[in-house]
């Protein structure tokens, strides 16, 4: 299928480019680390408080670094007008969205996995009790952020004031993802059974699917000239 082929090609291309330049992952990592450090100045929590607020801090740090990483990742396609080259490909432009989304999710999750221990050390968290659940939360939450984030990075690339437009559009719309991911993470950190979080998992999965499909269908309008 043309769509899958183009998406896969773009995904592999992004992996190759990232392996070479590492500019997306370094920007996410450095920024995320800085935010983690800044948070330790803002709060000096006891172990118990830390478990309560760490979910929120973690996802705020992920959100901010994601915004940075997403616009860097899309800048790769606008340099040398490559996006026009992609649009010449014999597939619906939605394929470009899917490929970009896949590589964005991968880079973000990888960066988050590296950032987690930093938070664990700074806030004395025991993050690794249930690694499977932790990874699932990271994946679903990040996919949610990236689904709209990839879309809006393409939207804001068309505007003056790109740096402003991406967060302005992304933040209000991703509130449900943030709430759900934070709740899941808090339940995990507090050591409560994960069945408490089933509502939030449903919300995350629903959000991810709805917006991935919608953005995929609408992407051709974003790149149309």
């Amino acid at each position, binding site marked *: 299928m043309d769509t899958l082929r183009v998406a896969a090609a773009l995904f592999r291309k992004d992996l190759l480019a990232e392996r070479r330049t590492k500019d997306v992952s370094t920007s996410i990592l450095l920024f995320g680390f800085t935010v983690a450090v800044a948070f330790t100045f803002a709060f000096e929590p006891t172990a118990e408080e830390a478990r309560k607020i760490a979910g929120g801090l973690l996802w705020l740090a992920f959100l901010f670094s994601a915004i940075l990483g997403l616009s860097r990742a899309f800048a790769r396609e606008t340099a040398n007008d490559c996006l026009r080259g992609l649009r010449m490909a014999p597939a619906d432009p939605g394929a470009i969205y899917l490929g970009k989304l896949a590589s964005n999710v991968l880079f973000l999750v990888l960066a988050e996995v590296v950032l987690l221990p930093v938070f664990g050390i700074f806030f004395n968290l025991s993050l690794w009790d249930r690694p499977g659940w932790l990874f699932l939360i990271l994946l679903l939450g990040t996919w949610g952020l990236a689904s709209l984030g990839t879309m809006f990075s393409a939207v*804001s690339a068309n*505007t003056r004031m790109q740096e402003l*437009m991406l967060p302005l559009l992304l933040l*209000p719309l991703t509130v*449900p993802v943030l709430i759900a991911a934070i709740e899941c993470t808090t339940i995990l950190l507090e050591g409560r059974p994960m069945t408490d979080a089933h509502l939030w998992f449903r*919300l995350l999965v629903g959000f991810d699917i709805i917006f991935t499909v919608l953005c995929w269908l609408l992407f051709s309008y*974003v790149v149309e*000239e």
Partner: protein
Amino acid sequence: MNSARDPVAVLLAGLSFIILVVGFHYSFLRAPTEASMAMVEPVQRIFYLHLPSAFVSFLGFFTVFVASIAYLMTRNIRWDWLAVSAAEVGVVFCAAVLITGPLWAKPVWGIWWTWDARLTTTLILFLIYLGYLMLRVYVIEAHRRALLAAVVGILGFVDVPIVYMANRWWRTQHPQPVIAGGESSGLDPRMWWGVLGVFAGLFLLAALLVRQRYRLEEMRAELIALEREARV
């Protein structure tokens, strides 16, 4: 000025005025005082402006959604004009909701703001459409602007029920800061007449505003087309 020569605008304005007078008459004089609200009598009447404004603003955002889809399907730029007009009017009414809400909550609940699902969703709705309008400012070319705005108009509206659900679930898991009785709980049927009357009046007012805003887009397009012909 301009609207004086426009019979439809005059009609809308007149009808809106008459219905609003009737609506507020019912709201202020006929509707009974809720027993629990007797203490805060006049403030309680803010509700008759607050709830209809919320309806109107929501209707405005729904119009943005429908017009955005229609634009993408038909590529008729007039749908885009309708979308931007409805978005702006929706934001104005949403601002009214956000202003009147806390003014009501402070004397009644004792606090300005609470993060309950309805309040939070309204605030986020406001931010989403503010973003929509900002986006339009920063895209210069009309065709591009219409496309990008339509995409955001659709995504934003689909997001609203999810935001609402997320906030409701969130709140049910956390202790409520106040006894948020909920505005619509046990509303006296006679109160509905006031609410509906004001809603009808505000709806016509909003229609007038949308119409004037739409006319603005129309004139702007006319000006650009003329300038294009003249090659100035």
